[in-house]
């Protein structure tokens, strides 16, 4: 039996087993189980990426049943990228959480459940990235949603419960609408497998309505403006390690499904005008999210609104994809680099914000002056993550913007490039507003004494990763070339 061919299955089974074991291991041993699982999943994800680079995309038949009866997993370059991103961020967040959720703190409500829920969420995310079946997407989305909502509320405070309830209702609305879309699509085509749909989809009102409903539901789950109303509260009031994974990974899960439906499953112009609408909403998200981030007085709210803005960039690929293979390649590589750099930098920012809040004992930006003096590495990490958010060279964010601007100029639709540049300036404005306070050289009264080294250095490690990503862009573009989107578009032979 070829072990490499089993990797997609293992990427779901291993974190699932880890989740179950961490539950029975008890709260003292659960962190060790989670760390061991995280290391294993990272190794599996890297192995999958290498395998896809060598041999191209492949399918994994769960239980040995093939489509259309079975539910296949599909491993392509883009899925491998998201799996590796999830594994890197996941490992760092797990390490950070061992310092954040102290096992000796018996009073903390629900903290013992963090490990199990987090590994369940990781399992569902991996499954979501790999699934090749539109109904399985529904199941994975719900599993991600259930664990995410529960993780938001494990702090147990009124604000967290309120945010969790709002998140849950948005999640239910999205899931039921998605399922209605699947029902209509199945009524019209009798198919659920994405690859079969891609080759058999013909013009049909019912199928088109179904796909439109599915995309609308996924837009709600991805929190694209104007469906972002649930995100700032949920991401802002969750415990910081949870905020990090929600902002950097969970929104990418539903986005990846939109990407595959729009660029791979549906023929061009199957839903005329939708790609323009998504591009315009993405632009609106960049401006609106950044302006809101600029107005926030609490640090995690600022970071959460920054996510609303950064999600917008991901949607610029859809209008650009209409302009031929070269522009599509540039734009797809651009959004994949953006997804990676935002994933790393935003996780770093949220972890950094969590460490700052622990040190100061509050979350008011205005009273965080002098952080640079007491926690230089932490402040440097936040600043470095800001560099990527703004898209300053040399950073992953810069590489992503460069690729997207090139795509916009090559397409002749220069206004998308104008949106990208405006977004960078606005990101600079809200990041400098935060940094100008942190970098003030004033003595500070700290709530907590010297923090754990993990909480100081791990945000910096993630931010450094986001900056160094600029060196890995050739690798990302190779993986993009090995994605089903570009292979089916005829770009990659």
């Amino acid at each position: 039996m070829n072990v490499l061919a089993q990797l997609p299955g293992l990427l779901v089974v291993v974190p699932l087993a880890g989740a179950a074991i961490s539950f029975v291991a008890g709260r003292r041993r659960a962190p060790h189980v989670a760390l061991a699982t995280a290391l294993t999943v990272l190794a599996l994800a890297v192995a999958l990426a290498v395998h896809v680079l060598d041999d191209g995309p492949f399918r994994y038949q769960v239980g040995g049943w093939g489509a259309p009866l079975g539910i296949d997993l599909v491993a392509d370059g883009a899925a491998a990228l998201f799996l590796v991103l999830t594994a890197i961020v996941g490992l760092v967040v797990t390490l950070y959480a061992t310092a954040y959720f102290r096992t000796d703190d018996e009073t903390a409500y629900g903290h013992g459940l963090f490990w199990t829920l987090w590994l369940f969420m990781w399992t569902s995310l991996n499954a979501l990235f790999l699934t090749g079946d539109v109904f399985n997407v529904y199941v994975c989305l719900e599993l991600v949603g259930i664990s995410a909502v529960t993780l938001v509320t494990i702090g147990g405070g009124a604000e967290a419960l309120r945010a969790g309830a709002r998140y849950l209702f948005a999640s239910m609305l999205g899931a039921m609408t998605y399922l209605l879309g699947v029902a209509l699509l199945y009524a019209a085509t009798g198919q659920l497998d994405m690859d079969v749909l891609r080759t058999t989809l013909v013009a049909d009102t019912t199928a088109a309505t179904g796909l439109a409903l599915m995309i609308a539901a996924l837009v709600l789950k991805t929190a694209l403006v104007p469906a972002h109303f649930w995100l700032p509260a949920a991401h802002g009031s969750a415990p910081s390690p949870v905020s990090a994974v929600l902002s950097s990974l969970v929104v990418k899960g539903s986005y990846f499904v939109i990407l595959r439906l729009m660029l791979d499953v549906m023929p061009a112009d199957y839903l005329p005008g939708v790609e323009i609408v998504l591009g315009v909403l993405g632009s609106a998200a960049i401006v609106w999210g950044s302006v809101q981030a600029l107005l926030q007085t609490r640090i995690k709210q600022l970071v959460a609104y920054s996510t609303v803005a950064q999600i917008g960039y991901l949607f610029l690929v859809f209008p650009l994809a209409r302009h031929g293979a070269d522009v599509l390649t540039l734009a797809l590589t651009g959004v994949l680099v953006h997804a990676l750099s935002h994933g790393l930098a935003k996780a770093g920012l949220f972890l950094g914000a969590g460490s700052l809040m622990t040190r100061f004992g509050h979350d008011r930006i205005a009273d965080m002056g002098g952080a640079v003096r007491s926690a230089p590495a932490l402040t440097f990490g936040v600043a470095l993550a800001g560099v990527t958010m703004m898209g300053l060279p040399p950073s992953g964010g810069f590489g992503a913007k460069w690729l997207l601007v090139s795509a916009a100029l090559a397409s002749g639709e220069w206004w998308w490039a104008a949106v990208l540049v405006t977004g960078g300036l606005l990101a600079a404005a809200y990041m400098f507003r935060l940094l100008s306070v942190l970098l003030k050289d004033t003595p500070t009264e700290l709530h907590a004494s010297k923090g754990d080294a993990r909480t100081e250095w791990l945000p910096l490690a993630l931010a450094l990763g986001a900056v160094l990503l600029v060196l890995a862009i050739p690798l990302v573009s190779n993986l993009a070339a090995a994605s089903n989107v570009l292979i089916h578009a005829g770009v990659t032979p």
Partner: protein
Amino acid sequence: MSTYLVYTAGGVLLYALGTYGLLAKRHLIHKVISANFMGSGVFLILIGLGNRSPEGGPDPVPQAMVLTGIVVTVALTALGLAIVKRYYTATGLDNLDDEPSAGGDR
């Protein structure tokens, strides 16, 4: 085909009612029940789909989808009710429109 249309029309109606309730109702329990309405509507459409080709026998795939969907919806409903109950215990509020007076200050 007409049986299928009846199921679909009924399902869409339930889904629309549920959506209205989820968005417009203030009370949190109403919202949870409304989400269940939406689910029932979709399940009704899917069950109707299984009956589309009487000559070939029932289509098992929509039934499998409905079974899976019911399991997921039960779990979501339980989670929703648990959160609503905890929120009520913590704040004494039964809706999300009123601001809680004592917030969990993070």
